[in-house]
């Protein structure tokens, strides 16, 4: 079993590296009129898609696999983004000129951001995960907006002016490494016995409890775990945009991730990767349609929901994510 898990981990890593190589080649080889197919702008979009993928997979852990309903993930992202930006920019004045200093600081900063976001996740989750369904959704939404309000009134964090001058440390490579590590960690967690108890909690809380699963602890732990990844994504996001503003992290942003997740398929890691990839790149592909693209985008969402309610991927997973059927039998035998 351990071997199989390692085997699949390697497969996931290889899949990501392949995508990276393709993107890199397309951004270097002069294919179209002496220019590479992917210019800087497209690379920026792919980087953004990578961050959105990690955010959506982490949201999927709470919403899809544990059956809780959080609509405040952008709040945790804000905690991570502001913490890491404060460390690199305001306190340590890191510059991207010297990567040997900048990157260790950057990594420490985003991890600290993640830890603080996890702490915020605990503060929100521990009392409120007792609430059921829609009420939990509303508490997380409120927590998101409260975090935003706190940032707005805190002068040190730039208040309503936002925080600028952040060094651009997020590159294509950084995002790929970040996405690989995060997705593999979350994947392995989901396929561990903890992951199975999460799914049990989702399917029937009462049944799970009678099987000796501590449902509250399970829910709080997943929530904190997921908030951690949201915080780290926030840090990476801040060092991509170089300027963060409280309004970047409003509940509208949380709703965006919710849309990515449910269009992709909420009970599938692959779905949580396909959804944000489609929705980050699609508006660009529809650029020719000008004003209409923002009208077509929600229409696609409504149509997907009506005609394929379970999301694009449904319950399916890509091969590199899931242990194949044949090997699974060997495990059980």
């Amino acid at each position, binding site marked *: 079993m351990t071997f199989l898990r390692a085997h699949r981990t390697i497969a996931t890593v290889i899949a990501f590296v392949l995508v990276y190589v393709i993107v890199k080649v397309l951004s270097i080889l002069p294919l179209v009129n002496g220019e590479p197919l992917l210019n800087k702008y497209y690379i920026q979009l792919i980087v953004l898609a990578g961050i959105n993928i990690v955010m959506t997979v982490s949201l999927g852990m709470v919403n899809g696999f544990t059956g809780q309903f959080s609509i405040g993930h952008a709040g945790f992202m804000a905690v991570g983004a502001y913490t890491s930006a404060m460390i690199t920019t305001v306190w340590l004045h890191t510059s991207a000129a010297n990567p040997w200093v900048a990157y260790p600081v950057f990594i420490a900063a985003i991890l600290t951001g993640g830890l603080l976001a996890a702490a915020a996740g605990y503060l929100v989750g521990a009392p409120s995960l007792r609430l*059921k369904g829609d009420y939990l959704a509303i508490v997380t939404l409120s927590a998101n907006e*409260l975090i935003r309000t706190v940032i707005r009134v805190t002068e040190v964090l730039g208040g309503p002016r936002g925080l600028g001058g952040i060094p651009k440390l997020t590159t294509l490579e950084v995002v790929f490494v970040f996405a690989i590590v995060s997705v593999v960690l979350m994947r392995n967690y989901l396929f561990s016995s903890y992951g199975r108890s999460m799914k049990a909690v989702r399917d029937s809380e009462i049944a799970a409890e009678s099987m000796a699963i501590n449902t509250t602890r399970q829910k709080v732990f997943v929530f904190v775990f997921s908030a951690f990844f949201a915080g780290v994504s926030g840090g990476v996001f801040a060092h991509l945009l170089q300027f963060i503003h409280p309004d970047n992290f409003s509940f*509208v942003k949380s709703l965006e991730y919710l*849309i990515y997740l*449910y269009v992709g398929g909420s009970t599938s890691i692959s779905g949580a990767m396909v959804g944000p990839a489609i929705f980050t790149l699609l508006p660009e592909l529809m650029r020719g349609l000008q004003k209409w693209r923002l009208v077509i985008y*929600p229409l696609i969402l409504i149509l997907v*929901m009506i005609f394929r309610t379970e999301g694009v991927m449904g319950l399916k997973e890509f091969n590199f994510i899931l242990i194949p059927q044949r090997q699974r039998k060997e495990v059980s035998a």
Partner: protein
Amino acid sequence: MGQFLQQLINGIQIGSIYALIALGYTMVYGIVRLINFAHADIFMFGAYMGFFLAPVMAKVFGGAFIPTIIAAMLITGLLGFVMEKLAYRPLRYKSRLSALITALGVSLFLENFCSLPFVFGPQFRKFPDLIVTKQIAIPGSLGLIITNVLLLDVGVSVVLMVLLFWFVNKTLVGKQMRAVAFDKPTASLMGINIDVVISTAFIVGPALAGAGGILYGTTYGMLASPFLGTWPGLKAFIAAVLGGIGNIPGAVLGAYIMGISEAFATSVNSNLGYGIAFAILIGILLIRPSGLLGKFMPEKV
């Protein structure tokens, strides 16, 4: 003391508008268990209807306010009806979360569609003066000032709320609505046509939001953009949850609590005024997980 009462009055004014929106959220939730995110955009649609209809109505009827508000309510009611038919009905027996995501989609669609230049346009618009604003000073040493717009806001919402209570408690359709909200399968076994009841909820709720939109335009005198519904909508939604979602008197109570606390907090700091709503909500939900007037339903095995 004067300052205190003045803020209280302001809070009641804004609370009245929230109440009209919150009623739509709570009615739809009570019957189909759906957080209708598009409700905020119906409110926006109502406000824009006021903008476009007021000059026509002034020409046809002489006075603008009453014909405009009735026309806007009819149009938003129709919009709600069509929305439910096209977007929510196909999902009625599927997972509730998919309906919620669809509601988000409808909300985004309405916002962006109305922003197209040949629909409402993204630009700032001045709301027409449906009535001439007059200030009325209350005699006494406190120096309180109220406007006739305030009286109108409170008056119209109270009239509409009374009509709604009468509709829900005294008419046959209202009785059916309460039955469906209580237990949908049993209600349908008793010969209640669920489709009719759900459509009614999706007509009455949006119509109230449309009226709220007209009052909003009259009070603030401007329409910022077709995205204007998001924040009042969110506040009203929170008000509905605060009172116990699905509970009609609860929504009104929650809306007034929200409006008044917001008025007081805003007088201290505008950012605080924005955040206070969420702090109150979290506090109340942790003490009473089903809202102020909501009933706690234990889970059955």
